[in-house]
């Protein structure tokens, strides 16, 4: 597969947007402006960007507790995200969901999810639904290495393969549950081998290489659209920060600083930037412009969130049920 220069640049733009958005969250969180739990995706941007670029607007994703990257890559508006993270009425969920529950049916975001492994069965249902409705929509389900030990993984993949559903299971293997290393949570190294149990293809890619991710997901999406069934794709990657903001010293209770530094050298964003420059896809200036534009968008989002109102007390009781 040949990725066009334009596409490569677009991938980069998405990755950078995720990175800068979350860099800003780090800062806002530290200053107490973002309440609750913020599980950051920094270091893993290539997965979301590469995967979602293989999707159409009307395709679906299910996301995780670490969902900012997925939803930005699927097209979520930063303003609405930021307002949600601030708990404001103008946010994606009117302030009711926060970081772990961002959803937008219009662009196929079936929700971030606070339950590890919770998204897989939902993705399977979106797949069944697309099949029943006779559309060729595809669903990508993101989940982590440790979530692959949950029963929902097993039940979900079995069901999807049994009915040849148009679902792509994207496992983000960042090598850790919260503090638990993969070696302590499963006796295997490549999660992709679990695909065999469900008679579906399993693929391992370098999750810090957006091109590899994008190619693997594109192939799986093609297969899914053609009615040939699901694929399991494992993306090897790493999270730079603690499990969530507030995890002391970026998780150095359970991993070495050295390990973190090693992985920072494999920075997927920088890596792509260097390639873009080396291959003369873009000029340095263009990259700087891009960054400036994104930063401006983020500032706009922060301003929007800041200026927005908190929901009023009565709203507590709204949206429990669909009325009428």
């Amino acid at each position: 597969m040949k990725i066009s220069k334009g596409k490569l640049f677009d991938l980069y733009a998405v990755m950078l947007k995720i990175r800068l958005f979350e860099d800003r969250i780090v800062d806002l969180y530290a200053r107490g402006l973002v309440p609750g739990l913020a599980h950051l995706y920094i270091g893993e941007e290539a997965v979301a960007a590469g995967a979602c670029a293989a999707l159409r607007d009307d395709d679906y994703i299910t996301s995780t507790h670490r969902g900012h990257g997925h939803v930005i890559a699927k097209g979520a508006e930063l303003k609405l995200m930021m307002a949600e993270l601030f708990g404001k009425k103008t946010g994606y969920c009117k302030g009711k969901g926060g970081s772990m529950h961002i959803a937008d049916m219009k662009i196929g975001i079936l929700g971030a999810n606070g339950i590890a492994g919770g998204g897989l069965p939902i993705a399977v249902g979106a797949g069944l639904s697309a099949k029943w409705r006779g559309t060729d929509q595809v669903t990508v389900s993101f989940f982590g290495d440790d979530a692959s030990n949950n029963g929902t993984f097993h039940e979900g993949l079995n069901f999807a393969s049994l009915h040849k559903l148009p679902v792509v299971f994207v496992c983000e293997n960042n090598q850790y549950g919260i503090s638990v290393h993969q070696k302590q949570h499963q006796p295997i190294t490549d999660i992709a081998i679990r695909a065999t149990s469900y008679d579906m293809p399993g693929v391992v890619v370098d999750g810090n290489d957006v091109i590899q991710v994008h190619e693997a997901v594109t192939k799986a999406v093609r297969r899914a659209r053609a009615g040939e069934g699901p694929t399991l794709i494992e993306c090897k990657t790493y999270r730079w920060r603690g499990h969530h903001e507030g995890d002391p010293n970026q998780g150095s209770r359970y991993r070495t600083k050295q390990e973190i530094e090693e992985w920072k050298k494999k920075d997927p964003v920088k890596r792509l930037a260097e390639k873009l420059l080396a291959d003369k896809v873009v000029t340095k200036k263009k990259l700087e412009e891009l960054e400036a534009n994104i930063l401006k968008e983020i500032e706009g989002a922060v301003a929007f969130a800041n200026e927005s109102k908190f929901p009023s007390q009565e709203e507590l009781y709204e949206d429990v049920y669909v009325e009428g």
Partner: protein
Amino acid sequence: MREITYAQALNEALRECMKEDERVILLGEDIGKYGGIFQVTAGLLDEFGDKRVIDTPISEAAFVGASVGAALTGMRPVAEIMFIDFTTVCMDMIINQMAKMHYMFGGRGKVPMVLRTNIGAGRGAAAQHSQSFHALYVHIPGLLVAAPSTPYDAKGLLTEAIKNENPVIFVEHKKLYVEKGPVPEESYSIPFGKADIKREGKDLTIVATHALVLRSLRAAEEVAKEGIDVEIIDPRTLTPLDKDTILKSVEKTGRLLVADEGHKTCGVAAEISAIVAEEGIYSLRAPVQRVCSPDTPVPFSPPLEQSYIPDEKNLIPAIRRLMEYT
């Protein structure tokens, strides 16, 4: 009017809704060729094919979760869990996903699905196949909970459940499947949150659910011989609960007995009792009595199981006791 069984009434509701709306599909274990363990889905595979009547693996989390995903994306799934006991294996999909999405997402997205299941002891099936813990779902906001006691209510409430925009836990009762009653041939809905007065009376109110409605009716006939005139209120849906009808009846009778097959502690009967203690206490001229399953697992041995099941043997003495207060 012709009489059909509760199971047939449910079957009819499913058939009619499937005919009317092709987004309605069924998922569950052995609902196809087998027709469902209680024959509620009998004949539907033949009529609608295996794209709409799907026999699933023993993967309740997968297929209930898939129902959530399908509902979110435009379908109207009706999932069957063979016994309420087994809803424990997919509780996360029910409590954390199905019930909460609409709220968590701030109104974006809705989950119009039905999870059909059943409660009730009396079949010698012991502790893991006979439970009645529907109260767990009444405790969780975001779910609607239906509890039909007659074939008529079964058909009308299931039709409403399928058409409703919200997730519904549709709690049937095993011992009622074979009970017959009059049911209109045409399609009809019974609105949620409207209790039905199954018997009018002036001396004592029984709020009864599921099989306890039938058992209360029998108890009422029995005590009528002693001149006791019992009113029986069947809430029909537990969420929403029609508390006005209950409070009004208690205002009239001054005596309340709540009869539900769930365990007593923290059950549906506790809630109804607490509502009256909170909002209708001045109507009462006697303590509120509960007739429920005891706080023990369901035993296998038939004589033990009979003594476990709340019925006339518990209702009649409770009624008499309440009538001693004047």
